[in-house]
C-alpha cells in the first residue's frame, strides 16, 4: 500500500486564527473549508485522442453564521493574509457589530475509512489512461458495422479537503475518484440512435483490474444497435418494470430530494410532517449510505467535517428520518447525518444525498416480468428531475422494451416517464431480490453538482405515465 505524505493543507494555528476572525463581529459559528484538487482527464472522439487535460483547483471557503444569517466568502489565496481577509468578509456579511475575542480549541474528527486506494491515479502514466480510450473505441466499433461514431472519456481526481469550525471540529479527507464513459452512435434506416455506458468508483486505477473497458464499450454499442430497431414508446399510464441498478434514480427523484431537511424545513417538500407515517409500499426500504465502499457517492467525511453515515430514511414503507446537514441539525438540537455537501470550496454546503438505494425484496426478477401482462421494461434509466413541493417527477429511459404477456418484446425509443413521488412509492407492488448499484451520477441542486450513487433491485410500479408518442 503506497504511503502518501500527509502534511495539512493549512497549519492548525492559522486555522484557529482564521476561525476566530470569522467570529469577530459577534457571529456564533465560523467554519473554514480548504480544498486542493488535482485532476487528469482525457477525451477520445472520432477515432482521435483529442486532448489530455491537467487541472488544479485550490482554495478555501469561509462560512460565518450569526442568528439566521450566513455570511460566506471564498478565496484562492491560501496564505494567512488571504484567509483572514476572506474570514473578515464573511464575518462582515453575516453581522455588524463587535463580538469580542474568541479562542477555539480544535478536536480531530475520525473520518469513516471509505476504502483503501491501491493505485493512486497520479502514479499512473498518462499513456496508460489514453490507451484505455483507444481500447474502448476499437471494442465499440467492432460490435457492428452500423456504429458510426464513438467518443470516450477518462477522468481521475484526488481531492484533499480540510474542514474546521469554531465548535472545535477539525477533520480532513482525501477523496479519490476514477471514471470512464463511452458514448456511441449507430446509424440505421430510421435515423441515428445513441448508446451510453459509464463506470466510476471512489478508488484508484485498480478500477480497471476489476472492470473490463471493452465490456463497458461493447454494452454501450449494443444499446445503440438495439435501439435502431426501436419503435416509438407508448403514451399513457401502464405497468412499469424497472431493472436493478440504474433504476435507483427513481428513488433519488421520487423521495430522495423530498427528504432533504433544508427543503422540508422550508415547507417545500411533499414529505413534510409525515414522520412516522406510511409514505410508501411496505416493500420499500430506502437508505442513504455515504459509507458504501467504492461507490460514487462515498465520502470519508462530509463537507462540514463529519464522518459519513448509513441512514435509513424509509423502513418498510414508514418514513423514519430526513437527511441533515450540520447547520440545520444544530438549529434543531439533533445530530447531523453526514449529508452536508458542496461542489467545491466556492460553494455553500447544503443537504445532499450520497448513495441512495432501495433494499432487496423477495421476488425473482424473471417472475416480475412474467407477472406483467402489458407494460414497459426500463433496462437503463437516464437522469431525472423533481418538483419537491408537488412531488411530481420525471426520469428518462435510455434503454427500454415493451412487455407483452409476461415477455420482453420490442425495444422502445427514448422518452421520459412521469409520476408523483408519494403515489409511485405506494404503487410499487413487486420488489426483486437482485439488488445492484447503478453507474456514477451527478446530482444537481441550486446550481451545485455533487457525485452520487443510486441502486435498487428489479421492481414493478403498477401504474406510471410513459411519455411516448404511440397510441
Amino acid at each position, binding site marked *: 500500500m503506497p504511503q502518501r505524505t500527509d502534511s495539512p493543507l493549512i497549519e492548525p494555528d492559522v486555522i484557529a486564527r482564521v476561525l476566530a476572525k470569522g467570529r469577530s463581529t459577534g457571529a456564533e459559528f465560523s467554519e473554514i473549508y480548504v480544498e486542493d484538487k488535482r485532476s487528469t482527464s482525457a477525451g477520445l472522439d472520432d477515432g482521435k485522442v483529442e*486532448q489530455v487535460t491537467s487541472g488544479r*483547483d485550490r482554495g478555501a471557503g469561509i462560512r460565518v453564521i450569526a442568528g439566521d444569517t450566513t455570511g460566506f466568502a471564498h478565496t*484562492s489565496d491560501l496564505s494567512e493574509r488571504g484567509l483572514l481577509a476572506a474570514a473578515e468578509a464573511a464575518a462582515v456579511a453575516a453581522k455588524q457589530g463587535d463580538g469580542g475575542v474568541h479562542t477555539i480549541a480544535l478536536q480531530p474528527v475520525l473520518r469513516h475509512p471509505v476504502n483503501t486506494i491501491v493505485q493512486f491515479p497520479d502514479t499512473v502514466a498518462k499513456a496508460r489512461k489514453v490507451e484505455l480510450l483507444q481500447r474502448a473505441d476499437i471494442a465499440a466499433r467492432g460490435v457492428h458495422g452500423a456504429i458510426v461514431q464513438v467518443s470516450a472519456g477518462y477522468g481521475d481526481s484526488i481531492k484533499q479537503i480540510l474542514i474546521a469550525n469554531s465548535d472545535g471540529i477539525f477533520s480532513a479527507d482525501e477523496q479519490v475518484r476514477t471514471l470512464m464513459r463511452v458514448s456511441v452512435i449507430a446509424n440505421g434506416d430510421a435515423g441515428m440512435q445513441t448508446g451510453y455506458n459509464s463506470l466510476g468508483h471512489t478508488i484508484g486505477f485498480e478500477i480497471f483490474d476489476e472492470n473490463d473497458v471493452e465490456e463497458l464499450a461493447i454494452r454501450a454499442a449494443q444499446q445503440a444497435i438495439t435501439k435502431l430497431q426501436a419503435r416509438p414508446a407508448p403514451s399513457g399510464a401502464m405497468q412499469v418494470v424497472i431493472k436493478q441498478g440504474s433504476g435507483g434514480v427513481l428513488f433519488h427523484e421520487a423521495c430522495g430530494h423530498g427528504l432533504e431537511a433544508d427543503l422540508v424545513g422550508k415547507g*417545500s417538500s411533499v414529505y413534510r410532517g409525515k414522520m412516522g407515517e406510511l409514505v410508501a409500499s411496505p416493500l420499500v426500504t430506502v437508505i442513504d449510505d455515504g459509507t458504501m465502499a467504492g461507490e460514487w457517492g462515498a465520502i470519508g467525511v462530509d463537507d462540514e467535517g463529519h464522518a459519513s453515515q448509513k441512514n435509513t430514511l424509509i423502513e418498510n414503507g414508514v418514513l423514519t428520518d430526513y437527511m441533515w446537514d450540520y447547520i440545520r441539525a444544530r438549529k434543531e438540537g439533533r445530530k447531523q447525518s453526514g449529508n452536508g455537501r458542496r461542489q467545491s470550496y466556492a460553494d*455553500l454546503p447544503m443537504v445532499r444525498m450520497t448513495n441512495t438505494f432501495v433494499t432487496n425484496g423477495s421476488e425473482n426478477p424473471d417472475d416480475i416480468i412474467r407477472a406483467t401482462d402489458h407494460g414497459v421494461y426500463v433496462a437503463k434509466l437516464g437522469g431525472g428531475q423533481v418538483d419537491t413541493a408537488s412531488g411530481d417527477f*420525471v426520469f*428518462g429511459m435510455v434503454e427500454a422494451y415493451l412487455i407483452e404477456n409476461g415477455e420482453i418484446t420490442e425495444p422502445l425509443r*427514448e422518452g421520459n416517464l412521469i409520476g408523483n413521488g408519494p403515489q409511485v412509492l405506494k404503487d410499487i407492488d413487486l420488489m426483486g431480490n437482485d439488488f445492484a448499484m447503478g453507474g456514477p451520477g451527478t446530482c444537481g441542486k441550486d446550481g451545485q453538482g455533487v457525485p452520487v450513487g443510486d441502486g435498487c433491485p428489479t421492481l414493478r410500479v403498477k401504474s406510471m405515465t410513459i*411519455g411516448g408518442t404511440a397510441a
Partner: protein
Amino acid sequence: MSTTVDDLQAIADRVVAQAGAGEQIEAYVSRGGETAIRIYEGELEHFASAQSEGVGIRVIKEGRTGFAYAGTLDPAAIAEVLADARDNVSFGTPDEFAGLAIPDGVAQIPQKFWDEELAGYPTDKKIALTKELEKLTLGMDERVRVDEANYDDGWGEVAVATTTGIRESGRGNSCYVSVSTLADDEEETQTGFGFSVGDSPKDFNLQKAAREAADRATRLLGAIKPPSKRTTVILDPYVTSQFISILSSTLNGENVAKGRSFFAERMGDQVADPRFTLVDDPTNPLAYTATDIDGEGLAARRNVLIENGVLKKFVHSSYSARRMNTVSTGNATRGGFAGSPGVGCLAMQLVPGTHTQEELIASVDDGVLIQMVSGLHSGVNPISGDFSTGASGMLISNGTVGAPVREFTIASTLQRMLLDIVAIGGDVDWLPSRAHGMSLVIRDVTMSGT
C-alpha cells in the same frame, strides 16, 4: 473588446512568448467575482461574496493538442500549468485540423458590457431590493409563500493571447433577481418562479417578477392529470427558450463534421415551417449572452442558421471550420479558464411573429398552454431527435384557457416539431439564457397523462 485589462493581458502575453519552435500556444486568463444574496421571511439568509481567478493554457505541436489549467494566477503555478500542457501534448493523436484561431479581419461590433452603476452599487441597497421582491411577491396572493428571493451579480475580466496573433481583453458585469414561490391549497402545494435581469439594479422590474412567480404557482392549484391525446401546444416564452436552446447542438459544425447532427446532410432543405427563421446573433445588445468576441478571440457575428424554414448555415469554431473546409463563424464557446474551446450558438433568436399570446390562444380550438417543462436533459436526445418532457400548464378549448393540468408529458421528435410549427408569437422576452423566448404554437404533439 473596448476595455483593456492590462495585467491579465500581460500574463497571457508572457505565457505565449515562451513558445518554442513549431509550438502554438494559447493563454486564457480570467478573474471574476460574484455576490449572492438570499432573503427568507424578511431576513438575510445568506450573503456570499467571492473572487476567483485562473489560467488555461493550450499547446499544439505537430497536430497534437494538450491542455492544462489552474485556479490561481500565482507565477509558479502558471509555469506548472504550461509544463503540464506541454507534457499532455505527447498523448494526443495527430490531427491535421488541430490549431488555434487566426485573426480573420472581421471587425468587432462595439457593445457596452460594463455598468459603472452596478459596479458601485451598495450592498445594503441590494439586500433592500431583494427584501422588496419577497414582500411584493407575498402581496400578490394570500395563498403564496416565498421559498427564496435572490439577488445575484457577477463581474469578469478576461484576456486571451495566441502565437497566431490573437490578442484580446475586456471586462463585463451583470445582475439579476429571482424569486421562487410555493402556493398552498388544502391538499397540495405548487411551485412557481419569476426573475428580472438588467445592466444594473435600476433596470429591474420587481413587480413583473413577483407577478409571474405568484401566477405560475397559483395557476396550477387544483391541476388535474389530463387524458392522453394528440394536441396542439402553445409554449410559453420561457419554454420556447429552452426548446430553441436544444437546437444548438444540431447546428453545431463540429457535431455535423462528426456525424452527430440529424441536419448533417440537409443543407438547403426545408427543415422547418416557412414561418421559422432562426439566427444566432451575439451582436444584439438585447441578448443576455451578447458578446463581441467568441471563445477563441474572433469577432462575434450575426449568422442566419435557418431562414424561412430552409437550413442555411452551421456554426463553427476555427477547428470545425477547417474540418469542413469553411471559415469560422465566430462560434467558439468556452466555459472559463478550466475549459478548452468548443462550438455552439452564442445568442439564439427567432424572428418574431406579430400576435400576442392571447391572440394565439384564441386561435386554438383544442390544445394546452405549456407553462413549465422538466427533464429536458433526460428525455430529449438531440442526436436521434426524440423529444419527451414532463410538463404543466393549462388546457385550451375553443380559444379560451381552462383547467390547469400537471403530471403529464409532451412528446414528438425535434424534426417533426420544427415542421409542425403553426405560429410564432410577437411577445419576445429577453431571458437570462442563451436563447430568447416568445410564444410558439406547435401542432400534433402527443400529450401523455392518464
